[in-house]
């Protein structure tokens, strides 16, 4: 660990005895947290451990029921988001709210734009400062670009620039690398080093251990809303942290079982789209897990969404169980036995505002109804069956899906599709941003499904997951299939080379 500045030994921000309850749930129970200047503190815990709640308390969105917040030696309260911002606490969220119709500069300075004469926004100065901020984090973006024209990784950089546009003492990074490619992650690490050198205290929330060990100086573990332990990274190892997180030791992370690979189920040939992908062809078999690896923007999700009837391919054909099928709508895909678990759970996955059981039965209503009339007892039976198989944690099946944690929402989406008894299930980043416990449940279940003869496509950007779960891996780059690996050729080096386009050393 590098030498810290003299002030590095006293925390700039301390939380003591923080508790927060919601109807029916005690989200935080007397937790503590210390953040030191010039150091990165990793907050570690499964989903539901209380990480998101503590972030919302630190940013003034929630008020703690009890406990104290001390910043720079002063006891403070954050009754509003503005108060937290004024105290120098800023956050880069998991899903940062940005404004599609505004420019990059306007997004960065919304709420505190530099003013000129008559109190009007000084656009010139704002854009100049935005350009300076973007340059300081190595982002090659025009301040004048409209946000809706940017990709997800660029949006993230805008969010980071926005967080830095206020003079922050404490920077909270909530899963900052979840949507980034390899190159961008390395740029983010450099950015974190820059912030450390500036003496900012950083709270870093991540599920990825390699990341935590790469950049964090200290760690704090929460479990089930309680503070468990904290310390420095130098004095801990991965196994110990996992043990503290889950309260038990996790021995096997990837429970891939060997399965009987059977007849071809889905054959895709020459699938093309005017802008997203070109000449995609592959065959998927019964009982097989086919991994799709690639950098963000390689066109993997777009291919999957075309197979699911969201977008139309301009050319190409697909054959399901020997029959040529034209899939124009999602309803036709479901009828043909192809289902898709999307990456964007919040918008495309679960119907928030509706109860769990209604989410599960939504594509199966023709089975749980008679002559179009709903039969609640059958709906509950179907929902109970599939949610319990996935080990869903919920208060009741009548609970709003929006109140569940990310991992449990994902289980509801998967349960919804399994209830349709599909032939092919496509999982797009199935474990992105979900806790280790839920992750293991999803992996376990995928493995079981394949063993039962279901054909599984898994799109994933996490190499250990792709290698651990897949029978075969297809790597995509710039909308095309770059390579395919099986057996001993499935190595991290091969996957990364194919994904970034480095040819085998001659």
């Amino acid at each position, binding site marked *: 660990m590098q030498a810290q500045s003299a002030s590095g030994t006293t925390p700039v921000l301390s939380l003591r005895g923080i508790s927060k309850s919601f109807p029916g749930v005690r989200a935080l129970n007397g937790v503590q947290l210390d953040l030191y200047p010039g150091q990165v503190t990793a907050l570690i815990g*499964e989903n*539901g451990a209380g990480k998101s709640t503590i972030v919302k308390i630190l940013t003034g969105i929630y008020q703690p029921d009890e406990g104290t917040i001390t910043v720079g030696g002063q006891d403070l309260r954050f009754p509003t988001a503005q108060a937290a911002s004024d105290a120098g606490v800023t956050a880069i969220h998991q899903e940062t709210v940005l404004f599609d119709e505004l420019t990059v500069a306007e997004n960065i300075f919304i709420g505190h734009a530099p003013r000129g004469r008559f109190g009007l926004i000084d656009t010139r100065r704002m854009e100049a400062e935005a350009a300076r901020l973007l340059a300081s984090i190595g982002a090659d973006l025009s301040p004048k670009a409209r946000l809706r024209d940017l990709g997800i990784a660029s949006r993230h950089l805008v969010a980071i620039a926005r967080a830095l546009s206020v003079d922050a003492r404490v920077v909270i990074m909530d899963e900052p690398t979840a949507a980034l490619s390899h190159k961008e992650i390395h740029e983010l690490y450099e950015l974190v080093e820059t912030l450390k050198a500036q003496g900012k205290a950083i709270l870093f929330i991540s599920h990825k251990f390699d990341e935590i060990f790469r950049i964090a100086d200290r760690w704090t573990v929460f*479990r*089930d809303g309680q503070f468990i332990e904290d310390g420095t990274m130098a004095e801990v190892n991965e196994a110990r942290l996992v043990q503290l997180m*889950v*309260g*038990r030791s996790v021995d096997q992370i990837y429970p891939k079982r060997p399965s009987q690979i059977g007849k071809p189920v889905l054959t895709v040939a020459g699938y093309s789209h005017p802008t997203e992908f070109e000449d995609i062809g592959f065959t998927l078999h019964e009982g097989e897990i086919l991994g799709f690896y690639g950098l963000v923007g390689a066109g993997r999700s777009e291919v999957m969404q075309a197979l*699911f009837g*969201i977008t139309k391919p301009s050319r190409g054909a697909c054959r399901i169980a020997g029959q040529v099928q034209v899939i124009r*709508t*999602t*309803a036709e*895909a*479901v009828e043909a036995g192809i*289902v*898709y678990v*999307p990456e964007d759970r919040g*918008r*495309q*996955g*679960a*119907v*928030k*505002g*509706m109860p769990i*059981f*209604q989410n599960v039965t*939504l*594509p199966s*209503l*023709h089975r*749980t*109804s008679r002559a*179009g*009339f*709903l039969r609640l007892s059958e709906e*509950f039976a179907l929902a*109970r069956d599939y*949610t*319990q*198989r996935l*080990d*869903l*944690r*919920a*208060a*009741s*099946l*009548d*609970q709003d899906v929006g109140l569940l944690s990310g991992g449990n929402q994902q289980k509801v989406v998967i349960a*919804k599709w399994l209830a*349709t008894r599909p032939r092919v299930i496509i999982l797009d980043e199935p474990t992105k941003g979900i806790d280790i*416990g839920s992750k293991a449940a999803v992996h376990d279940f995928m493995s079981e499904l394949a063993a039962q003869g279901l054909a599984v496509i898994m799109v994933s950007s996490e190499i250990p997951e792709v290698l651990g779960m897949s029978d075969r891996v297809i790597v995509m780059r710039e909308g095309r299939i770059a390579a395919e690996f099986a057996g001993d050729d499935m190595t991290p080096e091969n996957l990364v080379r194919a994904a970034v386009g480095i040819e085998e050393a001659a």
Partner: protein
Amino acid sequence: MSTPTPRQIPDRLASPLARRLKSWEALLLAVAIAIFIANSIASPYFLDPWNLSDASFNFTEKAMIAFAMAMLIIAGDIDLSVASIIALCSTVMGVAMMAGAPVWVLVGLGLGTGLLCGAFNGLLVAGMGLPSIVVTIGTMSLFRGISYIVLGDGAFTGYPSDFSWFGQGYVWWVFSVELALFAALAVMFGLLLHGTSFGRTVYAIGNNATAARFSGIRVDRVRFILFLLTGVMSGLAAVCLTSRLGSTRPSIATGFELEVVTMVVLGGVNILGGSGSIPGVVIAALVMGLVTFGLGLLNVPGIVMSIIVGLLLIGVIALPRLWAMWRK
């Protein structure tokens, strides 16, 4: 978080009855009863069955449209052209009547024109992906505009006496044909929205149309059907209203669309879509009917009445929020 065996998840925590007692509909029903009692104290003529029966014409035609509109709004759309659809349907019926068409043809044309108008709206909204509020503001002018071109300052009068059954006839004692239609449609729409898989998809679309599409629902087809349904119900309202008035003027049913939307929102339907119920709309129709009738008995002028209906809407909507603020 460490039990490996799947645990039992209960179906429900609160019983459906307990939830119903705390619902918006229950609050609205209490308001309806209060207005009923206040009216019967304020005016000695109020409790007369025939007066009450007459009063029901204040809401029956609007409520027919409100049932379909409730489903449309729950799905996240809106149709502001309903009153203009009535005008166009009535005009088409008038033209046919002048040509000597029999009653069943008039009714068929009324409903058919409504269906076509709904299909036109639906095609533009669900087929082409245009925003429903803009499309139906456009067709609101378009449909009534056609009526004005056909009729100018004139009016169609002289509908056959058989035709008057729809708006002036009685099924039994004080129960009018319109009231019977209102009751039957309330049951039908209640079943459609709350008891069928079609109704369930309406809620799913209103809560999150993208996720509904990603769940294999034919979102645009459902939205199109809802516009058809709203069109047909407007056609039915046109048959009843034309029959009751015995004439067609291009200004027929002016302002109905706002009263229909008021009824729907008062009934607890979220104007942003996703939630609401038919029982709520039924009670809201009764509330609005009772208020207008009660004020009419007290000789309150029409303009004051519309002010009171507006205040009632804002009041009932604001009440739960004020209650929550006061308790804080």
